[in-house]
């Protein structure tokens, strides 16, 4: 608690997300989800359960809407972009699947409303949730337009992992007790591991070195994860890298409306107009018309 801090220069923190974020980021982890390839098979979701110690809540609690699926695959039957004429006797064009995990917004609406600063932005551009600090006011979840924050309504661990199921729990992250909020972390424990390794080898983290559980298991590689800044190995950037895909589809961070030269490019972000500036870009689903 020093006064000099008050008078210190905080300009680097005063950058708004429109100016590329309010941190001088080391990384900016982002995702690209190709709905042209996503088949909605649930592999990512179950992989998330396995990686992140997500409890199985059972039918009753699921019915109450108290399930803990950090990564849920949403399924919609209608296709507004193909016009109402497509609505017919049968579901001729199948379903629309959207895997939804925390969008890691740069201007995260959940952050400013937390009374105890339990959720904040890391220098990785991640929207971190500090379980031990959370008091469970649940304001963040109310203010999340994606409804992607999940609350421990019970001490789920008490009956979610009857022995020996609990031997599968991942020691790299905690098992949450009742009363705290949680959400997708982009597998921060995996990011941490790779960063530590890179530090030990005294080298920067290379893009593509880190795989989230959902990305790693996705059979059709519909999910891509990577560093959107890609400061450390820009020369090695592949066209399939997240950073390159964002550029290719002319989607930029820090905007609530993208002005693309080519309007037909598929990249878009969900609820972008709310200016939450999510770090997950979706590529539009494709159908023969």
């Amino acid at each position, binding site marked *: 608690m020093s006064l000099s801090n008050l008078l210190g220069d905080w300009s680097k923190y005063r950058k708004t997300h429109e100016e590329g974020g309010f941190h001088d980021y080391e990384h900016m982890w982002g995702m690209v989800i190709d709905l042209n390839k996503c088949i909605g098979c649930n592999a990512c979701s179950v992989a998330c359960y396995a990686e992140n110690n997500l409890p199985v809540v059972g039918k009753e609690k699921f019915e109450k*809407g108290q399930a803990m699926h950090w990564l849920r695959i949403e399924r919609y039957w209608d296709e507004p972009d193909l016009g109402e004429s497509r609505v017919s006797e049968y579901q001729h064009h199948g379903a629309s699947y959207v895997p939804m995990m925390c969008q890691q917004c740069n201007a995260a609406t959940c952050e400013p409303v937390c009374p*105890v600063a339990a959720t904040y932005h890391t220098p990785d551009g991640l929207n971190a949730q500090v379980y031990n600090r959370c*008091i469970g006011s649940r304001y963040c979840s109310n203010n999340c*337009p994606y409804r992607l924050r*999940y609350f421990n309504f019970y*001490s789920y661990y008490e009956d979610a992992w009857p022995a020996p199921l609990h031997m599968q729990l991942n020691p790299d992250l905690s098992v949450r007790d009742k009363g705290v909020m949680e959400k997708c972390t982009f597998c921060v424990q995996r990011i941490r591991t790779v960063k530590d390794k890179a530090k030990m080898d005294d080298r920067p983290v290379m893009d593509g070195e880190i795989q989230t559980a959902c990305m790693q298991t996705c059979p059709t590689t519909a999910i891509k994860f990577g560093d959107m800044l890609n400061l450390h190995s820009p020369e090695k950037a592949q066209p399939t890298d997240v950073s390159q895909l964002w550029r290719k589809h002319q989607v930029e961070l820090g905007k609530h409306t993208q002005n693309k030269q080519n309007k037909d490019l598929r990249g878009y972000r969900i609820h972008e107009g709310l200016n939450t500036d999510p770090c997950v870009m979706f590529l539009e689903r494709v159908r023969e018309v």
Partner: protein
Amino acid sequence: MKDISEDIKWAKINKDVLRSMESPRMGYWVSVAVCLFMLAFAVGAEIYQYNVGMGPANLNVPHMWDLYIATFIFWIGMSHSGTLLSAILHIIGADWRKPIYRFAEAMTTFTLMTAGLFPIIHIGRLWNMYWVLPYFSDRGIWPNFRSPLVWDAFAISTYLTSSALFLFVGMIPDLAICRDNARGWRKKLYTMLSLGWRGDDRQWRHFRKTYMIMACFLIPLAVSVHSIVSSDFAVSIMPGWHVTTFPPYFVAGALYSGCAAIITLFILLRYYFRFEEYMTLSIMEKVCKLTFAIAMVWTYLNIIEFSSVWYGHDAVAKELLLSKFYGPYAPYFWAMIFFGSVLPFTLCFRSLRRNLKAMMVISIGLNIGMWLERWMIVTPTLSLSYHPFSFDVMWPSWVQWFIVFGSFGWFGLLFLVFVKVFPSVSMYEVKEMILHRRHLANKGIAEVMHRRSSDKQPDSGTPGLEGA
């Protein structure tokens, strides 16, 4: 019709008010028992919730908030009445407030003490509640001063402190009277609380200043408190919450429910303590008129909100509005409109205003409407907001209902204790009021004085309640 008759003898005032504090009658104990019974529900439910978690309360994604927050706003709102009647009317010198402001202020304090419980009840880890306060932590961790919830913590604690002190300061001369007439533990208590008040001109002088200053501070404070509570919602980005008119809307609603509550308590006290001479029907009428005026303001603000959404053409907000009209919550919404905007028109009828039984029912109806309003603010938005996949309708479970129900018992309990320990009518100010009215009523001051000097009965000065 007079607010109060000028012929009431000062001795009688003391006698009546002090009598109301005498050892209670049967009816009192019954009401205490009832309140304790209601409170038991809440305590039981809260213990259960504390042990199991928030799940049994039927909170879920997306319904992270529900009755707890709604009721929290309801109680906060009710607290505004005391400030309104006491402070504002004091400043503008409307002396008809004098017989009734004391219990109104008490209500303010106790509703705040009730409201303050709800944030604690509703958070997931209430044993860490103190983290929202800015205390010096050796880890250098602070609350997030950006969060409206922290503003709440500041505002409500300030409001509770100030209004409690306001109540206390206003009571000091009466406490002195009690001291002079009490015996036993009450004597000790009042001697302590009256801070050695003897009523010399110095004390009166500073008292006047202090009371006026505090009144002046309390009004903006009250307004700010409910604006801040409204910003819990207005600051968010959710449709139906992110509304510019929320601060005034909340304040109006607050005053509204406060006045309605005052009417209810007014009738009860008048009935229990036979305060007919002080809490007269004409004062009642004034409160009713005030309530009606505020009800109209509230209705107007409702219309403003709806139409601004309607013409604003924000698709999501519009969906939400329509779902309030036709959706699953429609019955409650229209009930709120009826109780909040239609029912108050009964206050236009003199016969009804003067009919205590009717007013009892009506005032309770108004408060039901106000409670529904808070619920209709909190829950529909959560049910239906931006993300269709998370649309959901969830009804609160018994846990929530028990705790809400019990909170009324808690409030009642506090109030019942108050009326037996403290004078619920301000004696010295009623005296002032009577004197003032006499000045108005009679020509010459001298005659007034002489009539008064002839008031002296042999027993008039006798100390002690038993003499009365």
